[in-house]
């Protein structure tokens, strides 16, 4: 595969260096189409249907839908920077806060370049497991919609929108290994992981011809649905996080020294940003400002709120007071869990999903982890893997064509029937894939450059060790 990649890269580089000619003429205005066609194209924008062939608007994206996806792209980037950065940054100890920020920022930059160079093409080109090199270096990824993915949203903003998902996924993983993995190792691991886990996952479930793309691919091998990334984002990152943190081992002095969050203020501020940004994540995944978008907006809100309440309530019952971290965790869990279902379900189902989210992730973080004894520093597994898995299965249970007519295209027989089983299959495959691939990559990175800082560096904190800076200077 690497060889193939190399060839692709070479080819693309050639294209890139070729004179940027040939494409400078404005579209010559054709003879105007008949009125009926023109009006129905204009209506199609409002109803999010495809334009007719040959009409003026065929070459255009629609400003209304484009606006929503531009906004959503901004929102999802905001989830990582500064949302997740503060959420995670607040949860580590003072001496490691910058290492989290650096990893979020570094991943944003690196993944962006990968995505542009080849990642987008592998994820959203045509193919079964991976796309081809057709969109390498964003070749041809321009204003005109790629109607495989969207009726009215520009291909290039769609690519950027998806980039923001590609960024946050590895950024979620770093929570599990926080405070004890070298910056260089995080970066190298993540770069490899994008190729081996993320690009395939995105393609399999969302890509043109993806084997597990139940919604759009009638011939899918697994008819799974994943609205906004329960599998593609949360399962891949969360389960990879689990194996990573086990292989990496516990933080120095874990269990002996307390390691409480150094700033619940940052963490809570980050939670608010994540919540708001998540609207771009979920409602944006309609790739239009249509009925599916507003459905996702509603279910996202409800699940977050219920998850927050449930976690807080459990703590209140169990030890007399609800913690802010508990409420934040519940809200994030509600958000992660509704993600795969958000654009498929009723508000009532969203409430149930939020309830399950709170319950299961609380159990995973507060009980399971202690029982099994791994050191998932910031609970990426407990929140994202568990939430993502539970949500993926529940999406299969609650998906309802009334709220998302697309379910009637290829899945009418499965919806309300065996769809949940497809969800289980899809989840299992990606769990195994993520865990296996991450384990291998871990050892590759370990062999190449090592993964853990020296005990002295860990003691002193990664901020100084990896970046030569301190988070806060009092003078």
């Amino acid at each position, binding site marked *: 595969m690497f060889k193939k990649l190399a060839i692709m890269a070479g080819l693309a580089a050639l294209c890139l260096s070729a004179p940027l000619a040939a494409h400078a003429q404005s579209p010559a205005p054709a003879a105007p189409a008949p009125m009926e066609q023109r009006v129905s194209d204009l209506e199609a924008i409002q109803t999010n249907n495809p334009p007719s062939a040959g009409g003026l608007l065929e070459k255009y994206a629609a400003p209304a839908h484009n606006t929503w996806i531009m906004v959503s792209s901004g929102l999802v980037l905001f989830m990582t920077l500064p949302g997740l950065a503060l959420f995670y940054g607040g949860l580590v100890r003072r001496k490691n806060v910058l290492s989290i920020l650096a990893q979020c920022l570094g991943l944003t930059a690196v993944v962006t370049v990968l995505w542009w160079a080849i990642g987008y093409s592998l994820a959203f080109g045509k193919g079964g497991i991976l796309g081809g090199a057709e969109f390498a270096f964003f070749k041809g990824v321009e204003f005109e919609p790629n109607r495989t993915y969207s009726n009215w949203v520009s291909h290039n903003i769609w690519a950027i929108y998806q980039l923001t998902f590609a960024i946050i996924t590895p950024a979620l993983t770093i929570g599990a290994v926080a405070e004890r993995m070298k910056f260089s190792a995080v970066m190298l691991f993540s770069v490899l992981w994008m190729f081996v886990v993320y690009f395939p996952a995105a393609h399999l479930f969302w890509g043109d011809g993806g084997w597990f793309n139940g919604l759009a691919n009638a011939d899918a091998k697994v008819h799974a649905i994943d609205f906004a990334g329960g599998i593609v984002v949360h399962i891949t990152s969360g389960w990879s996080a689990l194996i990573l943190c086990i292989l990496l081992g516990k933080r120095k002095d874990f269990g002996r020294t307390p390691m409480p969050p150094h700033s619940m203020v940052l963490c809570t501020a980050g939670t608010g940003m994540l919540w708001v940004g998540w609207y771009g994540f979920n409602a944006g995944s309609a790739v239009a400002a249509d009925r599916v978008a507003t459905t996702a907006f509603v279910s996202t809100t409800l699940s977050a709120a219920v998850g927050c309440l449930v976690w807080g309530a459990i703590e209140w019952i169990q030890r007399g007071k609800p913690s802010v971290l*508990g409420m934040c965790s519940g809200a994030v869990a509600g958000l992660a869990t509704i993600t795969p279902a958000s654009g498929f379900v009723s508000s009532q189902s969203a409430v149930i999903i939020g309830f399950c989210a709170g319950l299961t992730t609380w159990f995973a973080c507060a009980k399971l982890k202690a029982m099994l004894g791994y050191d998932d520093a910031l609970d990426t597994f407990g929140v994202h893997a568990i939430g993502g898995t539970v949500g993926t299965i529940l999406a299969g249970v609650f998906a309802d064509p009334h709220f998302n007519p697309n379910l009637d295209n290829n899945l009418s027989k499965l919806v309300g029937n065996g769809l949940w089983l497809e969800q289980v299959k899809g989840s299992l495959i990606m769990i195994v894939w993520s865990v296996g691939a991450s384990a291998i990559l871990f050892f590759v990175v370990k062999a190449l450059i090592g993964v853990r800082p020296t005990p002295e560096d860990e003691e002193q904190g990664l901020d100084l060790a990896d970046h030569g800076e301190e988070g806060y200077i009092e003078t």
Partner: protein
Amino acid sequence: MKKIEAIIKPFKLEEVKTGLADIGIEGMTVTEVKGFGRQKGHTEIYRGSEYTVDFLPKIKLEVVVSDDVLDKAVEAIIRTAKTGKIGDGKIFILPVEQAIRIRTEEQGDRAV
């Protein structure tokens, strides 16, 4: 000259300061410290991980006084800092051999 080191509850600082000022003491230095003693701390739980805090926030007050003011000063501190509840703190008295005011280089009792 003596140095009085008093470990007190933080919210008592204003009162103690006023109490000392009332008896003519015009200088003191305070430090935020953490105290461990009989007063018990608390347990915080973060997603199931317990974090026991048994160092509690205290204020350390340092006043260097001439020998003749010592008793009045100690008494003023006790009076203003006492709540009667565990954790009120301690007063330690240490000998001081010399005191110098940096600005004027005055020495001894005149420096404090």
